[in-house]
């Protein structure tokens, strides 16, 4: 993936570029808002990672300008402003996701990959399939190897989100935000318990587990048996 990082802190940017390259992407770096804007205007990127507070041109202004010009490249806004309302402002300006500093690199990577997937046509499918697991978004019916699995509504949404991002790591905060629509700090490992309940329903009794825990990052649903 071609990723443009607009970040004024040189150390943070160097770390991001290196880590993203190791993860198999091709990142490019701009040190201020104006440079970032002209790079984003001149080339086509898969995703933009934009720091909110930038010299010369503010990060939100960069995103607004790009959106006005019809540029629909997914944008992840990075910010030291953590509050819900700053988040709202960030998303309103045209950002697609918002991540607060300090962040875990795994979280950033997971969100970038989720953003690119979101714009892919797969999101529009009505039936998600992984190995023998099938989820019908219209009839809300879940089966594995043709055996019906009864899920609670929230478990269904949890599985739906995981399957939409099949093969990608999704973090606990991503799940809280997208499945529960809350952005607060739940204090305890509430999400883990929900996921392990779901796992008990979809993986128990089958020889090939699909829902995996990625240590220090989150969860992924994928068929790793083959």
């Amino acid at each position: 993936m071609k990723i443009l990082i607009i970040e004024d802190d040189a150390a943070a940017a160097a770390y991001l570029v290196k880590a993203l390259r190791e993860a198999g992407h091709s990142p490019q770096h701009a040190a201020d808002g104006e440079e970032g804007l002209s790079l984003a205007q001149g080339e086509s990127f898969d995703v933009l990672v934009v720091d909110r507070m930038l010299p010369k041109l503010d990060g939100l202004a960069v995103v607004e300008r790009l959106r006005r010009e019809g540029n629909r490249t997914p944008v992840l806004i990075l910010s030291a402003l953590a509050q819900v309302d700053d988040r709202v402002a960030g998303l309103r300006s045209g950002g697609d996701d918002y991540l607060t500093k300090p962040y875990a690199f795994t979280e950033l990577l997971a969100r970038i990959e989720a953003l690119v997937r979101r714009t892919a046509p797969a999101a529009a499918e009505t039936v998600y399939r992984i190995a023998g697991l099938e989820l019908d978004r219209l009839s809300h019916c879940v089966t594995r190897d043709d055996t019906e699995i009864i899920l609670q509504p929230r478990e269904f949404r949890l599985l739906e989100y995981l399957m939409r991002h099949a093969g990608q790591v999704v973090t606990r905060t991503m799940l809280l935000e997208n499945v529960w629509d809350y952005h607060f700090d739940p204090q305890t490992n509430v999400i883990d318990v929900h996921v392990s309940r779901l796992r008990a329903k979809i993986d128990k009794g089958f020889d090939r587990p699909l829902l995996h825990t990625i240590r220090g990052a989150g969860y992924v649903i994928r068929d790793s048996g083959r």
Partner: protein
Amino acid sequence: MTAVGRLLRTTAFKLALGLLGVFTLAAVVALLYGVWQASRLVQGQIAEAVDTEISVLEEQFRLGGLRQLVVVVEDRSRQANSLLYLVTSPAGEPLVGNIGALPPGTIGKPGTSEVPYSRADSDIIARDDAYVRVSQLAGGFRVLVGRDLGERRRVAEVITRSVLGALALVVIVSLLGGFFVARRVLHRLDAMTATSRRIMAGDLTERLMVTGSGDEFDRLALATNAMLDRIGILMGELKEVSDNIAHDLRTPLTRLRNRAEEALRTARDEAGWRAAFEGIIEESEKITRTFEALLLIARAEAGAVRDHMASVDLRALATDVVELYEPVAEEAGFRLELNAAQDVHVHGHRELLGQALANVLDNALKHARRADEAGQVVTVLVEADESSACMTVRDRGQGIDEEDRARVLERFVRLESSRPGSGLGLSLVAAVMRLHDGTLQLMDGDPGLRVIMEIPRLKAVLPKRLHKAP
């Protein structure tokens, strides 16, 4: 600017000046009207006197002919302050009367007119015109009766003089009044400004003077003083918080550093390094969480998030949060019960209210366990009446001693320092309640603890009305 200049620029003085202008205009209009009315009255009296005299003379002429008329007119002309008389022959020759001169043709046209004249005993044209009436008698004779209009002028003059005099007095008094009021206002304002300057210079203990008269300046001073009190409290809290932050961030930062140093010293293999780094990341996460909780409290206290408040259904919110915590509670050996009979709409901040309820629930799950009991119930109750809405979380644990209840709301206070936590959970809940003009109460659950979050509902009229509609 001179002292007088400042006086003249005060609102009080300008107001006095403006009112004065309005009143002067009204007085002038009233004056013109009064003069006009008085003139009409006097004019009417003059006309009536002249008309009566004419009919008397006509009667004399009818009874005694020209001779009698002449006798009567001669007699009346000689009286002091007499009316004006003139009798003329058919050829227009004056026969008798006390008028010296009249504009030519006056006697020729019967009816009334206002003309200049002079008396027979003087050559000077009278100062005022006369109101005259000419009557045609039998045989071509004519009789004229008139009266000087000076009275009309004098009445108008008297009225004008008295009103103008009064007006002058009013103007002087108003200017003086405005001046003194403005000076008083300036005096108070100068005192307030001076105090404000001293406060700005750093003396936050100063207060504006309150005279006790209850006037608008007192009200302003009281409000300003209340604001200063609040600022003083906030400043104090801020200082306390920054001290606490310094303490509570320094401690984990020290631990972070210690771990790194220890790893440098002792780690020999990859597993050792890995464990050290994981520990470091964990510590940094703790610091971040503490920091975020503090920021959130600051935000809620500053009220800046009020713009993002909207109608929130507490039942839906509690349902979400209870559902989120239910599996964790079950794992910890609790049963979560939600008791919410109806939708409860309040004007609030969904995220912050959710965080508040989550914090309280989290506390209950962490601390309510009693060693001898298993399968405890934690109840979340959402209820409302006309004026307020309540979210209550009740556990059946060991509760909190009465003397500790106020203390746990303070920042960084942890009753069980061995348990994990930042000591900010309940402080945040309290801040969120303050943001909603609500209260946070800790009550004895007998056994256990009842945490009551109460929010006034004054702003939630609309959903209630919708609710009542058939």
